[in-house]
């Protein structure tokens, strides 16, 4: 893509999310969301093959519908309560509408159906932007409207963790696996958001490096299916050894960083006296763990046979920077001992 257009689009993507973060008026927050949607559309369809255009169209329609619903809910709230400030509590009816609209924006179950298909049609870099950056703005708005309609939020959270687990079980395409992983993690964030927004933020802050690492690892291997990952042991043995740590961290296994948010969330849910919800969420994390383990098995725990060309490739020095992946992989695997410091930082 023309570098000027690319930079304008990326800067507008940043502008949109920043506007939503900085806004105290619902209209400005809505504008920020629309700017993000508009800016990412050409990025998604930049390769111009029909699958990418289909993904772009689906993304645009769902995000536009969600944004229209946000606008409608905030206007209804302005009608009923007389003011547009985000900091003031919403009337219950527009609050429920807003919650569903933001759930559609983020890809929470039961309105998650667009996410696997959209992510599947994108290349790994754009999919990364979609999974990480585009989740920030609706997440912040969701944090700011809490507490609202506890049963709806709990329903969204538990359904998302279950759907994220079950839906990902039959997948062989890595992007769809990551989509269901995103749904499950967002479900965990939503569950705790009504009680403690800092823990939801912790979950997001731990989730982003993990997903970033996973996308970068898949990009390094140029693989989009589990089968093609099987050749990774010969191409990049070091990365092949690190990947299970990242994937199991996504699954929430101690002693990796991914355990930190799940542990804190389960503790908070127990403190709030809903141990049944906590148990269901913990059990549904087992489902997700299975498909992360399957990917690790295919990639690392098995040295897959191949012909001579693929088992003895030249391992030349790459021109791409390895620093981002190094940093995010370290964060995703080794942050658990720093849990008290991380929690203390987030309480500010």
């Amino acid at each position, binding site marked *: 893509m023309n570098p000027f257009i690319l930079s304008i689009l990326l800067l*507008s993507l940043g502008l949109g999310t920043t506007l939503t973060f900085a806004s105290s008026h619902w209209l400005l927050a809505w504008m920020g969301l629309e*700017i993000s949607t508009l800016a990412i559309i050409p990025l998604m*369809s930049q390769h111009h093959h029909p699958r990418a255009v289909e993904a772009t169209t689906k993304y645009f329609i769902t995000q536009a519908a969600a944004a229209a619903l946000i606008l409608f809910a905030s206007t209804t709230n302005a009608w009923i309560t007389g003011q547009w400030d985000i900091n003031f509590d919403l009337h219950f009816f527009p609050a429920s509408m807003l919650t569903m609209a933001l759930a559609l924006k983020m890809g929470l179950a039961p309105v998650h159906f667009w996410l696997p298909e959209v992510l599947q049609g994108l290349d790994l870099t754009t999919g990364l932007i979609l999974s990480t950056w585009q989740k920030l703005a609706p997440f912040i708005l969701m944090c700011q409207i809490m507490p609202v309609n506890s049963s709806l939020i709990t329903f969204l959270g538990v359904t998302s963790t279950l759907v994220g687990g079950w839906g990902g079980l039959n997948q062989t395409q890595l992007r769809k696996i990551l989509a269901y992983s995103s749904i499950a993690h967002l479900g965990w964030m939503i569950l705790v958001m009504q009680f403690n927004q800092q823990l939801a933020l912790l979950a997001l802050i731990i989730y982003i490096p993990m997903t970033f690492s996973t996308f970068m690892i898949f990009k390094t291997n140029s693989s989009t299916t589990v089968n093609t990952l099987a050749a990774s042991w010969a191409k990049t043995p070091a990365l092949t050894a690190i990947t299970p740590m990242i994937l199991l961290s996504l699954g929430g296994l101690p002693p990796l960083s991914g355990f930190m948010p799940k542990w804190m969330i389960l503790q908070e849910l127990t403190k709030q006296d809903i141990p049944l919800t906590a148990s269901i969420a913990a059990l549904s994390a087992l489902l997700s763990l299975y498909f992360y383990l399957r990917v690790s098995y295919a990639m690392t725990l098995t040295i897959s046979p191949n012909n001579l060309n693929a088992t003895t490739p030249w391992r030349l020095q790459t021109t791409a920077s390895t620093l981002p992946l190094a940093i995010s992989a370290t964060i995703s695997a080794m942050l658990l001992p720093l849990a008290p410091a991380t929690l203390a930082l987030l309480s500010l």
Partner: protein
Amino acid sequence: MAYIMLTLLIGMVLGVISVASNPSPYFAALGLVLVAGVGCVVLMGHGGSFLSLVLFLIYLGGMLVVFAYCAALAAEPYPEAWGEWSVLGSVLGYLLLVVGAGSWFWGGWYEGMWVPVDELIEFSVVVADSGGVALMYSLGGGLLVVSAWVLLLTLLVVLELTRGLARGALRAV
């Protein structure tokens, strides 16, 4: 006045149903004209005459005309109108939905939202729509810049999406 508003709002809901029931684009555009026209009159009834004028000019006179020309490029010999069973089923479904929503919201505090009557138009210091435009150019300077940027961004996005003549799914005819 309340009866006029009620009739207009019913017309608007019927127009929305006629668009949402998925007929051929010609008839959907016709439904859109109905919705936009009636919506403009509702807006005028609330004192937003400037906004209503702008909506008519830009939306109906600009965007919908362009859409009609594009729809003409995809013309088909037997377009589905609302009498066709596939569309009529959707129409009846949506009518049922409207009646259901109406019965759900009947009575209680919701009833005040059925037919809003214009409030205090004569006593306003700043008329809502023209005053708002003036405010946007004076106090709302930052928002004006952001809105202008968004318009430029939309132009660049559309140009980037339709760049090239024959690749992808968006091709020149």
